[in-house]
């Protein structure tokens, strides 16, 4: 019995890892797309694009990875969830298409530049919003018959709210990325917006948590019954602490810039890691509530798991290639480390 649960559990965790990586990595570059309209000049827009043009493709690959892990390890869940969420997935894909091609075409265009700016901003926002919508569905769950009848149950005030919340969260990640990668006005703007977004994100996390606890007695019990609830309580406490530090750091970046302090004491890259850990904690909270389900109360990871022959076939691939992927991805980020320079670089 233990062995039968072991492999599916591994893939459940792997799926979680893939989703988390996607949310963190594409989160900051979608976030920059969401922030885009709040920056005005061509030079600022160039800068924003340059800061992510070499990584967006790799970041988006985590979305494909999540999709195929779901397909290969949990075919039943992939089939049900994908057709249930038909429209949000399609709209997300269209959004990703427009913002993806904008990277290439914008730098090669003159008269049509304004359209690529729009494609990038609207595409990124649409994709992020749809992802938030899907998150909302995962949290609230759907009726048993809604998968077969392909209803519109994914469209609720709650899921619309989570759509906006995820947009804000990605934008926050984008702000902290810019705080790390930019100088001067752009950095200051990013830090300022980051503080406001952080307040909204914390409020949204609180509301979503309260709503879930109120609506779903099982989750309430899991959080407030038994000794393990003490460990779970660490998650919100740590989140509050991270948010507190993040708010202070973003403020410090602004003040010390005004005081013309040395760059080294401004902690310009710490906000990004704090925002990332905020996401990590929120994600851990989500998984703690959802476990062992892929779709609440309907599809659990062990009922949806593919046969052993498939799970063990993928295992060496994952164990060998995933560390390699992480290594060369890190190396890629290392090569492009430091502030983004505002001049023509590359091909």
């Amino acid at each position, binding site marked *: 019995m233990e062995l039968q649960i072991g492999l599916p559990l591994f893939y459940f965790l792997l799926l979680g890892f893939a989703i988390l990586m996607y949310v963190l990595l594409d989160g900051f570059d979608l976030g920059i797309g969401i922030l885009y309209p709040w920056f005005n000049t061509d030079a600022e827009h160039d800068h924003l694009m340059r800061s992510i*043009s*070499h990584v967006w*493709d*790799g970041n*988006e*690959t985590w*979305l*494909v*990875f999540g*999709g*195929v*892990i779901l*397909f*290969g*390890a*949990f*075919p*039943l869940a*992939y*089939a*049900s969830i*994908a*057709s249930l*969420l*038909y*429209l949000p*997935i*399609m709209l997300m*894909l*269209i959004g*990703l*298409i*427009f913002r*993806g*091609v904008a*990277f*290439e*075409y914008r730098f*090669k*265009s003159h008269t049509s530049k304004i359209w690529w700016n729009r494609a990038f901003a609207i595409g990124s926002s649409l994709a992020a919003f749809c992802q938030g919508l899907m998150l909302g569905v995962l949290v609230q769950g759907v009726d048993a018959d809604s998968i077969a009848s*392909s209803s519109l149950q994914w469209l609720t005030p709650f899921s619309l709210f989570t759509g906006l919340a995820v947009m804000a969260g990605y934008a926050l990640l984008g702000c902290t990325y810019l705080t790390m990668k930019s100088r001067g006005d752009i950095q200051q703007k990013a830090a300022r917006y980051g503080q406001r977004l952080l307040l909204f994100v914390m409020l949204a996390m609180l509301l979503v948590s309260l709503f879930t606890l109120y609506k779903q007695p099982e989750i309430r019990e899991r959080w407030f019954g038994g000794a393990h609830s003490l460990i779970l309580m660490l998650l919100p406490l740590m989140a509050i602490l991270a948010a507190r530090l993040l708010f202070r750091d973003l403020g410090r970046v602004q003040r010390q810039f005004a005081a013309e302090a040395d760059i080294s004491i401004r902690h310009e890259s710490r906000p990004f890691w704090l925002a990332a850990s905020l996401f990590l904690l929120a994600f851990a909270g989500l998984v703690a509530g959802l476990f062992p389900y892929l779709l609440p109360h309907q599809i659990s990871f062990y009922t949806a798991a*593919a*046969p052993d*022959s*498939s799970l063990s*076939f*993928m295992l060496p*691939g*994952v164990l060998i*290639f*995933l560390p390699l*992927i992480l290594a*060369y*991805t890190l190396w*890629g980020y290392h*090569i*492009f480390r430091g502030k983004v320079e505002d001049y023509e*670089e*590359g*091909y």
Partner: protein
Amino acid sequence: MELDAALLSRLQFAFTVSFHIIFPSITIGLATLIAIWEGLWLKTGNPVYLQLAKFWIKPFAITFGMGVVSGIVLSYEFGTNFSEFSRITGAVLGPLMAYEVLTAFFLEAGFLGIMLFGWQRVGPKLHFMATVVVAVGTWISAFWIIAANSWMHTPAGHIIVDGVFQVDSWWQVIFNPSMPYRFTHMLLAAFITGTFVVLATSAWQLRHSEHKNMARKGLSMTLWLALILTPLQAYVGDLHGLNVKEHQPVKLAAMEGIWAEREAGAPLLLFAIPDRVAEKNHFEIGIPKLASLILTHDPDGELMGLKAVPADERPNVAVVFFSFRVMVGIGVLMILTAFAGAFLRWRGTLYQSRWFLTACSYLAPSGIIAVLAGWYVVEVGRQPWLVHGLVRTIDVVSPLPAERVLFSLTLFVLTYSLLFGVYLYFMRKLIRKGPPPMEKLSQQLIGVKASGYAVALAKHIKPEQEQR
């Protein structure tokens, strides 16, 4: 008229996958050529190779970008539009795609950033390595996706438990009977497609642009490549055809337009109009006995015809029949071009022959059209099956409301039509703009080394500050 969700889902998949295949077909060949040029530049120091690499890397970048965004769509469409198919074959096809992502997609994406934007950040050898890795990544990607696709044509190595596919032998699943042929055929097709895009552009540049040296080099290299690759492709295509005859005789009958249950001494039809209702061809023009000779190596050999199976197990004959002729026709044209080029080279008039260069410049989309036609033969020819002989397409479509699929299909048609126009516009723009001039090329070489990079940076920043 009642809307049919199943038909709409199939149309949507056919449309989105057709759009997608255009771009990898070009980038597989183009990435390989760019890697070759960069390698030759490192080896010989001849700047014309660097110029070629630098010129083609821009069209490559936009083509690759289009391939990425249109490819993500496909990885979700299995589940959104063919949920039952995903449920029953996920354990077989999902792991193959997981390997594709693990061994190819991440690799391509990870090194693409360095290939495109890393010229001033890494040394020339490391940059060359990044380019090679991207090229090899495109081949690996083709390997896995062709393995998955081939399994749907010639399924092997599986068992069926409670209506769900499980794997008995992964080796047999991956190297299923048609996989080696399809993989070789497709990889060659992609190399040829990239080759002809470069060949056509170089021919155009020889007549209309000032970068004659680069154009001459590009034309010469691609003509040699075409001379080797196109006849080889004809040979591999023939082997692939024999494989189809063995495993999917109905598809072969549709390709050849053979109706009779068994036909001895079947002619090779050059033209005909197949009629599904009357179960025969109209206006046949053919070469007697040639089809039998090619496929059985005996002029009186017997071939199986469409009537050997019930009407509901036959594909749309006309689509398969005509697509096959388009593909073969273009193939013949390409072989003729390669030989004509070799002949002119031997005569010493290759670069002056206006008619030949003009003709070549019209061949830019030839590879893409042949690839699309070939895939229509393969995929339409498999219908009504999704997994040959085991799963019918119509049985595994998601039970979606038709309006919803119509909505997404409309969105895709609008989006892709717009983007295809944009893509052609920018390709034309980049080709007309030409390569970076030689002087600028040497400047960029300074930047390749880290110290030079700092100097270039300082130079760049100064005038900017003075302006303020």
